[in-house]
């Protein structure tokens, strides 16, 4: 197997791990609360589609590395995945329906679990910086909300006059 091929196989397996964890999470959610998003055959189709769109995004991101425009080369994989998914979802409602049968919060829990493990060896560093970042965080959150509210207020005022 060529190194490129091997890399893609590894990405495909990690993505498979990711969607499997989502399924597991949704199952546990159902055990806890039988009224949450049910697992149907559409859920499996939805997970398969999420896997496929993610993989397409990875391939697009790799292909775009060949483009001689810096902003396109630097555009993150996650952006390509969203674009690929939005395009496909506009083409067919079937994709939307299938993806929506995957519980949204069930997608988030596995990500945060892996994120928690990935920071394991940096906890000490984190303790060093986080009080400053905590102060900054207040201004960062306030900043985005306040600026958006000001622009929205102005926009609505202009729209109605």
């Amino acid at each position: 197997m060529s190194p490129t091929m091997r890399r893609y196989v590894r990405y495909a397996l990690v993505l498979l791990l990711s969607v499997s964890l989502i399924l597991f999470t949704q199952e546990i959610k159902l055990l806890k609360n039988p009224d949450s998003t049910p697992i149907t055959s559409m859920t499996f189709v939805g997970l398969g589609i999420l896997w496929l769109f993610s993989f397409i995004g990875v391939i697009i991101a790799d292909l775009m590395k060949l483009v001689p425009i810096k902003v396109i080369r630097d555009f993150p994989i996650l952006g390509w995945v969203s674009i690929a998914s939005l395009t496909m979802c506009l083409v067919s409602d079937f994709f939307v329906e299938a993806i929506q049968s995957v519980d949204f919060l069930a997608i988030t829990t596995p990500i945060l679990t892996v994120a928690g493990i990935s920071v394991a060896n940096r906890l000490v560093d984190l303790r060093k910086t986080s009080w400053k970042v905590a102060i900054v965080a207040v201004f960062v959150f306030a900043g985005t909300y306040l600026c958006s509210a000001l622009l929205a207020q102005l926009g609505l005022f202009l729209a109605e006059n």
Partner: protein
Amino acid sequence: MVKNFVYFLVFVLAVIAAAELIGIQTISIGSMTISMLPLVFAIAIAMILALPFLRKGILKKIYSKKNVDFASKYLIFIMLPLMARYGSDVAPQIREILQVGWVFIIQEIGNLGTVLIGLPIAILIGLRREAIGATLGIGREGELAYISEKYTLESPEGRGVISLYVIGTLFGTMFFSIFAPILLDFGFRVEALAMASGVGSGSMMSASSATLVARVPEMESTILAYASASQLLTSFIGTFTMVFLAAPLQQFMYKFLVRGDKK
């Protein structure tokens, strides 16, 4: 190698199961309601068990260098299905979004407030490269993935974004459920605040819009519609705002603000 990974996998499943069984916890402080989602418990459990003094026996095997490296190297790929999910949230509403149009789009530019207000404060209190990660955005998955791709999470920028991510995860919803009604008292229109609620985090958006509904119940449907439409827009074009506006603005302001530093 394989055995190592089995420990990792079983541990991930156990943490997910524990977090989901704890479920959504609501704490009421006076008239304020704070909701904690399973994702908060998931990251908290995974981080607490990683504390150095706990790393003995099985935990030492789980948090082996290989496993931790695997988690940080492939975190982006674990996140990709979430990015794919956003496409399906935007697509069915694209027509409505286009109709309400430009007001939604200009208020997206307000997301640069993280850089405009956050960066000078960060530099003032002595942060340097960490500030890049901590003020690029509100430190959700998008910024995390962008910083991790551009600088890696081991870099100072990476530490900044992770700190903000953790703080946001733990306290973000609490912050917005307090801040939104304060601005209402300052005379902002509830529609404007509803639009601003789409900051790019589902839980923060729900916290902010839910408190607005509690304050102005007769506007409930408008608030929820505006908040979720704005959220959909942010979850999609937020990446563009970040890459093409926030990041260049941040680089420019950063160079300007730290020009007095000794080499």
